[in-house]
């Protein structure tokens, strides 16, 4: 399946885009999506275990994603 993974802040600046399209297996887990983003957008220097949100919730590396899910890579937050 294809997924548009959302990028924000420093990740978006590095990629020059607010999302990146990746191809992953139909039963992909978050970890596979992250790996695919590393390949598709090498300019984004992701940490070893980047924070990922699926449908607006933080999701662990083992969570499965579907084509209808909204997946986002979350740079270190700095609110407040």
């Amino acid at each position, binding site marked *: 399946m294809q997924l548009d993974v959302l990028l924000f802040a420093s990740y978006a600046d590095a990629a020059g885009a607010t999302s990146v399209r990746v191809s992953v297996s139909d039963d992909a887990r978050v970890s596979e999506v992250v790996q695919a983003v590393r390949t598709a957008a090498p300019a984004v220097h992701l940490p070893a275990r980047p924070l990922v949100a699926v449908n607006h919730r933080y999701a662990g590396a083992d969570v499965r994603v579907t084509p209808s899910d909204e997946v986002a890579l979350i*740079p270190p937050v*700095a609110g407040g």
Partner: protein
Amino acid sequence: MRTGLVGTPIDIAAIAADVASPANGALSLFVGTVRDTNDGRPVDGIEYNAYAPMAERELAEIAREAAAQFGTTHIVIEHRTGYLALGEASVAIAVAHPRRANAMDATRWIIEALKQRVPIWKLEHYTDGTRQWVEHGRGQGAGRPGVVRGAEGRGSSDREVTDA
């Protein structure tokens, strides 16, 4: 309870009025404002960016958790987005409670949780014309990106490199 992102200046008196009630004797507020320096670099202003739907969801969830933990639903959290000038309020938290210790503990718990979990980022604009994304709890160029720090920030005295 009322939480959310706002695009216009935060009105502290209005937020205080929103949580006030004759059933509560204590009202605690915390306001974060834009500082004029960061790590010794003169700052012109800060641009706040949010992953809006997730940030709104996390703010609401933090208020729900605080309500359960501290025993009051008289909670307001507002976080500003967009470009803020020096001294402007970026975040305001208000909690009213019959007991002052709970009101103050809840306020502190909320700001710590917010800084750990809510997907908001800030782009500092320096007076020399440069800009940089800020990461909390890190000196510039240092640190371990992407690691959410310990879940409980209550009582900590962490040094902030940026606004609070």
